[in-house]
């Protein structure tokens, strides 16, 4: 069983297709692993044992009937609890949706099912995807499989932890300010934020609609690419969905190379607050890129210094509007309805009882930033910063093919360490946020362990919008070179659970 859970998604799919393994065997191995370790890790909020086995049996039956199987048929996946799943609880890590069973599937859920991917269950997350540590989940934090006293990143900490703990070879995350890449970085896994609009947001519970983007999480670059191809593509159900062909990401992942590429290093992605070991591993990655034939170009993107500030005005503003739907009237929790109170009072009591502190903080912040008298100074200015950041990227991509940076300024911090200091917590997203504001594509992949704490460091690769294939081409080359240097995948160095 140990062997099965260590296989990559590509290997599992191949062995199922050849009949060497059945989808049921693979699913059972992962369910057994979840049962064995999830009490410690708490990556999952809901495990759909019966549903997963039924899907696996269907894949095996299809194969026996000689029907064509998709490239990831029978491969198990852990789905962030932000995507609606028909008949399976969806809570977004919040008490306000405790026990809610959606009557429909998100487009992404449907695409996974149509591709015969086996959905194991729903993963833990910061409430409404607000956070960088998964400590804001109403159902308790997730542990980092490298050190259970450390955070697994957020908001998709459950998805990345499930990969690092070998509970699933594939997972889905969403990235509003870094919630796919930052967890990937601190757990030693791969995470991709595709170009904004390239993966449908229909049925993905909205936090900040102009920034939210679903994407693949995996242990290898190729696995992420295979999943990317399954979930991306135009969706008429989503007015923010781009009607353009999905770039050839799998082909790029199979042909990794940086030979002759121009790779940008941004001046603003270093300085105070960066851990020495993170900077060291990043500098080594830049050296590696040079050795592999890339030309390194220094870039100046002055507006990036304002990105964090702009983000923490725009995201709360959009969330204060999006979360108005949680009013206790049509679904979810209803509190204080004793027959004497008005709908308005019941709504206020419901939201007080159902939302956690970070959600309340952001709703209040957004309400403030959008209020008359402050709108121009805060929200309006933040939108101008967004323009400047987009221009900085445009200028940068005239000179380079991709940009690289550390994914996070530090490795995983201790659970509880930053819980009462929102500004310290927000710094975790320093390097990931500019990409969300501009809508372009980015990936995080492991580039070693920080010498001071032996915890994983992530390398971020950023590409222009709709050039997601460049992430995979560069990522695959870096991954291959590092794996050759280390003699194994980085996760092999994680302590056994």
């Amino acid at each position, binding site marked *: 069983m140990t062997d099965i859970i260590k296989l990559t998604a590509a290997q599992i799919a191949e062995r199922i297709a050849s009949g060497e393994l059945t989808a049921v065997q693979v699913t059972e191995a992962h369910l057994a692993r979840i049962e064995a370790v999830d009490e410690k890790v708490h990556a999952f909020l809901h495990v759909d044992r019966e549903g997963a086995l039924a899907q696996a049996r269907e894949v095996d039956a299809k194969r026996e009937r000689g029907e064509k199987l998709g490239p990831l048929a029978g491969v198990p996946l852990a789905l962030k609890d932000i995507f609606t799943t028909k008949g399976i609880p969806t809570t977004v890590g919040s008490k306000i949706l405790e026990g809610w069973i959606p009557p429909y599937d998100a487009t992404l859920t449907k695409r996974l099912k149509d591709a015969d991917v086996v959905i194991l269950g729903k993963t833990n997350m910061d409430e409404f995807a607000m956070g960088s540590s998964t400590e804001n989940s109403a159902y308790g934090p997730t542990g980092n499989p490298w050190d259970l006293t450390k955070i697994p990143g957020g908001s998709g900490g459950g998805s990345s932890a499930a990969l690092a703990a070998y509970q699933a070879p594939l997972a889905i995350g969403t990235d509003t300010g870094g919630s796919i890449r930052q967890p990937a970085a601190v757990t030693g896994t791969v995470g991709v934020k595709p170009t904004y609009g390239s993966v449908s947001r229909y049925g993905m519970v909205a936090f900040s609609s102009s920034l939210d983007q679903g994407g693949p999480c995996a242990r290898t670059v190729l696995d992420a690419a295979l999943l990317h191809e399954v979930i991306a593509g135009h969706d008429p159900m989503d007015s923010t969905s781009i009607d353009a062909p999905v770039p050839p990401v799998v082909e790029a992942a199979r042909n990794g190379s940086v030979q002759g590429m121009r790779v940008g290093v941004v001046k603003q992605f270093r300085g105070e607050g960066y851990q020495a070991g993170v900077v060291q591993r990043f500098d080594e990655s830049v050296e590696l890129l040079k050795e592999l034939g890339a030309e390194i170009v220094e870039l100046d993107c002055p507006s990036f210094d304002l990105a964090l500030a*702009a983000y923490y005005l725009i995201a709360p503003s959009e969330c204060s509007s999006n979360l108005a739907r949680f009013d206790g009237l049509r679904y979810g929790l209803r509190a204080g309805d004793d027959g004497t109170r008005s709908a308005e009072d019941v709504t206020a009591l419901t939201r007080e009882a159902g939302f956690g502190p970070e959600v309340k903080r952001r709703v209040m912040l957004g309400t403030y930033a959008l209020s008359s008298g402050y709108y121009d100074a805060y929200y309006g200015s933040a939108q101008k910063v967004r323009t400047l950041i987009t221009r900085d990227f445009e200028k940068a991509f005239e000179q380079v093919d991709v940009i690289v940076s550390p994914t996070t300024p530090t490795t995983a911090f201790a659970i509880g360490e930053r819980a009462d200091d929102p500004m310290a917590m927000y710094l975790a997203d320093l390097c990931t946020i500019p990409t969300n504001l501009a809508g372009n594509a980015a990936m995080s992949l492991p580039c070693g362990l920080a010498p001071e704490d032996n915890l994983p460091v992530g390398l971020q690769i950023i590409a222009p919008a709709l050039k997601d294939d460049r992430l995979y081409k560069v990522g695959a080359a870096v991954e291959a070179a590092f794996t050759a240097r280390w003699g194994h995948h980085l996760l092999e160095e994680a302590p056994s659970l």
Partner: protein
Amino acid sequence: MPGITREEVAHLARLARLELKDEELEHFAGQLDDIIGAVARVSEVAEQDVPPTSHPLPLTNVMRPDEVRPSLTPQEALSGAPAQEQQRFKVPQILGED
């Protein structure tokens, strides 16, 4: 930059339909003040002649033919309702008696 007072937080909470407890009002006043102080730097660009970007994509409204299509059944649509009556959402009173 004016500090955010407890009273202002209480007003925001009412606007946001959040029945905050007293200790939360106090706590959030301090934190919101810190956060606003840190993010106010964006106003450095306020005077510049820069058009705002509200969205990374140029959005256009998506229209479809006005045709009846299969959708959720009333039972499905009401399946998550905290209270229902006669195939409708049952909500607390919306209009006051006076």
